[in-house]
């Protein structure tokens, strides 16, 4: 970076103020920044604490194995929501991973010119588009024409949501494989296809898997697009062409209901969601650790 970009301070150091006061105010300033950082971390811990305490009161075996039950009947669970979420997220991952990795290959190895620049730009921008807008897109594309809510449409919205993460992480994963490895493979007479799929991708695999896991973490717990795609269900529904129960949606609906017993269910569901998302994030980071230490 260019040193001349630095603007000179408008005033020189305030020489009228004694050094003691300046030292003191410096210590105070540093203290305030530390306070802000601690406050931010503390907020995280407080939220975690509430979810853990409130959520653990709702958890029991029935919570994981039973269907939701009406108000006033104890022992209802969110089994269908857990399974529904797993199915929806699974389908989304199956759609987004191959496409995302292929686009990552394109950006890292073949990209030239306007198409590459626009793909990169759009991937960045897409990651900031509100999930509810993407839910509306899935609705307009897959729900409205068929007049039928479905887990497929939710999976499509999820796939679009996780795509930017997979694209950018697999791009940088593939780009960080040394050029010489690719050149060596090509020089040995391997076709471009084989060099990519059998040499470069295996070398980049851990980082790509990290990207996919982060993508899954991004959509697990995502609620807004589900409202008008998967819609939710009170029953066991395993056919992705039909409306399906989703854990995040159950948490939302239980939370805004007027019943205390349902609020407890909401906290329980929230605990499951947060544990799942944190676990995904931790595994994703752990995969990259041994690489970095090398």
């Amino acid at each position: 970076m260019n040193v001349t970009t630095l603007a000179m301070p408008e005033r020189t150091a305030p020489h009228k103020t004694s050094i003691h006061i300046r030292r003191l105010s410096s210590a105070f300033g540093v203290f305030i920044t530390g306070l802000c950082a601690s406050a931010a971390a503390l907020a995280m811990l407080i939220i975690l604490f509430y979810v853990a305490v409130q959520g653990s009161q709702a958890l029991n075996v029935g919570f994981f194995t039973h269907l939701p039950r009406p108000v006033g009947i104890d022992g209802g669970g969110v089994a269908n929501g857990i399974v529904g979420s797993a199915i929806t997220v699974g389908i989304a991952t199956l759609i987004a991973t191959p496409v995302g990795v292929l686009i990552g290959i394109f950006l890292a190895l073949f990209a030239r010119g306007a198409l590459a620049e626009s793909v990169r730009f759009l991937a960045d921008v897409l990651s900031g588009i509100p999930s509810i807008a993407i839910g509306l897109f899935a609705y307009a594309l897959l729900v409205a024409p068929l007049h039928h809510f479905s887990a497929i449409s939710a999976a499509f919205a999820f796939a679009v949501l996780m795509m930017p993460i997979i694209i950018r992480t697999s791009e940088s994963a593939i780009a960080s494989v040394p050029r010489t490895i690719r050149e060596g493979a090509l020089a040995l007479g391997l076709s471009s296809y084989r060099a990519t799929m059998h040499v470069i991708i295996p070398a980049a695999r851990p980082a790509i898997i990290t990207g996919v896991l982060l993508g899954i973490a991004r959509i697990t717990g995502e609620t807004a697009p589900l409202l008008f795609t998967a819609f939710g269900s009170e029953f066991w529904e395993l056919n992705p062409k039909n409306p399906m129960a989703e854990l995040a949606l159950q948490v939302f609906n239980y939370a805004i209901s007027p019943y205390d017993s349902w609020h407890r269910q909401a906290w329980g569901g929230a605990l499951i969601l947060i544990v799942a998302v944190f676990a995904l994030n931790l595994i994703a980071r752990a995969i990259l650790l041994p690489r970095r230490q090398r």
Partner: protein
Amino acid sequence: MILSLRKRAERAHRNDRVFLGIVYGSAGTFVLLILALLVQLILGSWQSIRTFGFAFLWTSQWNPVTSQFGALPLIFGTVVSSFIAILLAGIVGILAAAFLSDFAPREIARPLSFIIELLAAVPSVVYGLWGLFVLAPLMRVAIGPFLQHVLGWSPLFSGPIYGVGLLTAGIILALMILPTVTAISRDVIAAIPQDLREASMALGATKWETMRRVVLPAAKTGIFGALILALGRAVGETIAATMVIGNRPEIAASLFAPSYTLASVIANEFTEATTDVYLSALLELGLLLFIVSFIINALARLMMWTVFRGR
């Protein structure tokens, strides 16, 4: 049987062409997908665009019963709640970033950064749940009355305190965007050349003076980019805002008053929209959100690109 070299080369060439076709095809499909997203939203909101025109943006009636749809109260709620969020998260986040990059010893900075970044992983619905059952009651019995006691002379803090409302939503949104502001600002500040700090310290400036007069001014563009990126998140945030903002399409001066955002109207009313024009108006809100967040993110990307270009 061993194929002749020539046949193998031909086969490899054919495979490569198919492979390249698939690779370029996926990239092209991706661009088409975003275009389709825009086209679908425009098509869906066409009826509303035709009916209300640009007046949609500054009419303050949102009344499904009379089929009057004006987005002004929703735009108001979105802008004010996002502004509160940016204000709070901006101050705390930038200062925290300064601490994490320059002042804190490594052993403290790393775990703190890790915990703060976990905030980004918490699902939106969990923030909403916490906001609804912990923050909102606290706002009603403690924070709200206190603010009213101190600042009650201002219309911003007057009126009844429901617990849910603009301020509560702003605080929840601030928590949600805090990790974005902190992490990016920290990286931007850490990318400022060490020479500048050393020069400033050598001239006799204290740590704090160096941060405030040398490092932060040099990091201005990147930090601004981080704030814009965070703004994009706050504007489009749906579920958490829906749960704590009170969901009433009115414009009130008080920050304690319930309000509504673009995204939360869609979340609440979409499946209940009975008429075509209602559905179309909701889709137009989605289109609005899409365009606004597209511009915000494009802008943020441009700024980040300016900052990290050299690396």
